[in-house]
């Protein structure tokens, strides 16, 4: 097997019986992210992640823009999760500006946030299917996603990036026919979720590929600081919506799923249950939606007071937080984004080492790593 020694990408000498593969950015199994694995037979013995291929310096660029101007730039870091990635930014900015947003705006933020969660989870499901070789599970979610994109389009005005949760509230109000259409979509999708269970979540081949694969025990999950579905699948009932309720989550009834098996299958199931819970939350929000303004009118160059703010929300992939330091001008002094993908990255070498080569895509994608978000 000396064919694999010293390829164009690896820079270290591997011993004669190990092969080093770069699962690089030009690979259908990785996205814009590269990790190098060293293989001994069928077992992975080492894994070195190499993020940074799509690092665009978002944090530096916020120093050149006012708070409102940064929103479209920041939301493109996480395309499947646009509302949730700008919401903590807006929340921290509002704290620094000393304003309180109206309740209707908070409910609308919740509706869009949960819609975004379903969109992100459906995309995740599609890619998880294709990584396991299951092309039908790739096609169905991406088709059903269109319904929720249409819902987002009714409120936000665009298909993917709507720059909706700006400092001061939300940009647009909800149209009148949104509620009927949303309820119809939810009924249809709940029936479809049963089909998904039959073809993917209860499929014996998928169960064989995901159960007892990539096990992350509870204590280690907490120590490594993972968040989101990875943490909840390891038996920790932690969700920012119940840990530190923002908007009006404390008035709503929803459950946070946890599983004790800590394996890839548990992470898949957490995604499924969260999709159902998101629809439930949206139904409750549509019932409870109060009347009123949706925005506090701020100037585009609004001045923030000096100080620090740290705001966090439960994004689709986990807890996302913004730390903003302001010196009292219209531009922030320092913005630091802490994204769930970056925090989960440390679990990737831990889970891959010791597993089969064929488990690599299943484990990697079950951590829900979004390279663009992690690199900011």
């Amino acid at each position, binding site marked *: 097997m000396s064919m694999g020694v010293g390829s164009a990408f690896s820079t270290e000498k591997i011993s004669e019986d190990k092969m080093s593969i770069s699962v690089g950015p030009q690979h259908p199994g990785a996205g814009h992210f590269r990790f190098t694995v060293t293989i001994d037979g069928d077992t992975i013995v080492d894994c070195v992640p190499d*993020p940074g291929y799509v690092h665009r310096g978002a944090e*530096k660029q916020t120093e*050149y823009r006012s708070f409102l101007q940064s929103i479209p730039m920041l939301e493109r870091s996480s395309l499947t999760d646009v509302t949730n990635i700008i919401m903590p930014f807006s929340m921290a900015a509002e704290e620094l500006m000393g304003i309180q947003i109206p309740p209707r705006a908070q409910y609308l933020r919740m509706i869009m946030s949960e819609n975004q969660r379903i969109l992100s989870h459906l995309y995740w499901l599609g890619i998880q299917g294709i990584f396991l070789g299951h092309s039908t599970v790739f096609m169905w979610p991406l088709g059903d996603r269109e319904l929720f994109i249409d819902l987002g389009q009714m409120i936000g005005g665009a298909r993917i990036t709507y720059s909706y949760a700006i400092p001061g509230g939300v940009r647009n109000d909800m149209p009148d026919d949104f509620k009927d259409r949303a309820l119809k979509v939810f009924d249809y999708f709940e029936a479809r979720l049963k089909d998904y269970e039959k073809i993917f979540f209860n499929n014996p081949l998928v169960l064989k590929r995901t159960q007892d694969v990539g096990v992350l025990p509870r204590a280690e999950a*907490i*120590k490594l*600081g993972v968040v989101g579905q990875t943490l909840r699948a390891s038996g920790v009932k932690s969700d920012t919506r119940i840990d*530190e309720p923002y908007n009006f989550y404390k008035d709503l009834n929803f459950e946070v799923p946890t599983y004790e098996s800590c394996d890839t299958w548990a992470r898949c199931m957490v995604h499924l249950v969260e999709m159902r819970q998101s629809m439930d939350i949206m139904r409750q929000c549509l019932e409870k939606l109060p009347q009123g303004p949706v925005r506090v009118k701020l100037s585009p160059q609004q001045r923030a007071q000096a100080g620090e703010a740290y705001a966090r929300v439960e994004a689709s992939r986990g807890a996302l*937080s913004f730390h903003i330091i302001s010196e009292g001008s219209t531009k922030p002094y320092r913005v630091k984004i802490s994204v769930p993908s970056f925090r989960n990255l440390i679990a990737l070498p831990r889970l891959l080492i010791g597993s089969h080569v064929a488990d690599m895509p299943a484990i990697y994608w079950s951590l829900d790593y979004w390279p663009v978000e992690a690199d900011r």
Partner: protein
Amino acid sequence: MSTTPAQPILPDEEKSILDFFAKLGERTKVVFAKPNRIKINVTRENLVEVTKFVRDELKFDHCTNVTGTDFPKDKQLEITYHFGSIGGTGLRRIILAVACRVPSTDPLLPSIIDLYPSVNYHERETAEMIGCVFQGHPNLSRLLLPEDWTDIPPMLKAYRLPGRLEEG
């Protein structure tokens, strides 16, 4: 940023945290204490010790964020660790910020990776972004920046993005 007196609206958990830091005496200095957010300042000599207390006594078991900021007016770099708690009772909503200031000409400080393994990639990113060195970190190599980056660390205020218009 100066110390603020304990507000009357602070819940019990924050008050007990502030009492604990008061007991530590001169090693820490409370910067602000709001509901759900407390920030303290430590020196780099006390950083590891105080962090050990934070983990063992106060039960903040994971690190959520590491921020590195450049303050050229004070000629200092500030590294802030944010800690969260899963295991502690009633502490889920609190984020504790521990800030450490080092001079820009001597940006060395100890790494807390032995206490919190989750800061591994965070410290690497902070080190390459503002140019500080975490002593004791096993592998402080480039993470997000390309390997052939030859400019100064980009989050320093002295680094200006090429091609951007500078306003007054």
